């Protein structure tokens, strides 16, 4: 079973539907003790970093999540869920993240040219090195992004980038912890194929 961490952040209707579509059983997990029953875990998220981290902690899900990750279970953070994996975020202040990925979350305006629209919204091409998560897709495939902040100073964990006037982090990996900045549940067949690859991962 895939456990989708439900801590009151974001629209997870499509995310749940996407697992049905690819034939994997996913459940929304609201009680921390139930996370132990899941073989793989999804950390979704939309909205502001500080607020989301506070909710994750207050719901008791953070502690449960960290302990399952320690056991080696595959975990995938999506969008803000990926950003939460980092050490720090500078979105509307300065906030501590989960520290599972080395680096910080910074405004894309730090690196992109000033005439580029913000947020970075739309379909953009993925550039990546071969890895398990992308085994069913090819370089240059398009995925759907919606974000104004990005993962910085995370060279050792970056597994995919996209070009938006600058190279922006599109995906990270640190051991059994994976994160994608884009929305696989909104990226058509390419996105579903990424989720399928994740669903087939074995724990460490």
């Amino acid at each position, binding site marked *: 079973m895939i456990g989708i961490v439900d801590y009151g952040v974001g629209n997870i209707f499509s995310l749940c*539907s996407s697992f049905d*579509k690819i034939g994997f059983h996913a459940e929304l997990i609201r009680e921390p003790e139930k996370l132990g029953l899941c073989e793989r875990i999804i950390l979704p998220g939309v909205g502001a970093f500080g607020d989301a981290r506070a909710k994750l902690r207050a719901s008791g899900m953070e502690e449960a999540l960290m302990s399952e990750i320690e056991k080696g279970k595959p975990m995938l953070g999506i969008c803000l869920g990926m950003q939460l994996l980092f050490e720090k975020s500078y979105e509307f202040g300065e906030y501590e993240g989960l520290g599972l990925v080395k680096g910080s979350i910074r405004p894309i305006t730090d690196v992109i040219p000033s005439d580029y629209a913000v947020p970075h919204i*739309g379909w953009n091409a993925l550039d990546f090195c071969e890895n398990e998560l992308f085994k069913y897709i090819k370089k240059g495939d398009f995925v759907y992004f*919606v974000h104004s902040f990005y993962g910085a100073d995370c060279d050792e964990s970056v597994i995919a980038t996209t070009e938006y006037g600058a190279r922006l982090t599109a995906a990270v990996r640190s051991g059994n912890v994976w994160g994608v900045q884009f929305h696989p549940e909104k990226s058509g067949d390419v996105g579903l194929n990424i989720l399928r690859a994740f669903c087939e991962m074995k724990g460490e």
Partner: protein
Amino acid sequence: MITKRIIPCLDVKDGRVVKGVKFQGLSDVSSPVTLADFYSRCGADELVFYDITASAEGRGIFTDILRETAKTVFIPLTVGGGINTLADFERVLGSGADKVSVNSGAIRNPNIIEEAAKRYGSQCVVLSADISLVDGKYTVFARGGRENTGIEAIEWIRAGVERGAGEIVVNSIDTDGVKRGFDLDMLAAVCDVVNVPVIASGGAGKKEDFIDLFRKVPDISAGLAASIFHFGEVEIANLKKALVDAGINVRV
């Protein structure tokens, strides 16, 4: 590189797509779910559902339709029409919408933009404006283009972005339905004052109109249209091929 988006818009009333759709091979052309799936397979980058239902029970049918669509179609879905309160945002976001577009609701109460952006994030809040040139001044119209508000459009949009709108849909009343191309001057004027993605709407009649749009107003992020897609006058797959041939970056 980011691609230019092509967005079909479906007007939905009491659970059915209005403006008669003519497609061969589709079992139920006025089912929003069937049509959304069809467009998604043709290469649409996003979908807009516009709820023109007047009754409360129609609203319920609309959210059911939304849920059905989000179960089968995995591209971004924007919902507009009848969005006046945060409860309206909650209702459609909980049923599978990714973005919510406000129009007349924001004219009545501009604070809705800020409140929604705070709660759901700017990426979720689309400000849609129906604009016409009146006495040399771009003017905002409410109630589906029927009511002149007297509000100056460019400043209205600029302020909307300041309030927290993460994306803008500019619908030109003057070119809408005329099919002689988008309102390029108006669109350029909007792009000049905002830094969020701008979606062009109103006036597309043929493939060349989209090529013109993206060439002449390079800051435009997407082109939106309804009837030309529904009637098959422009097929999305062909349109995208034509855009590629014209050197415009799209997802194929």
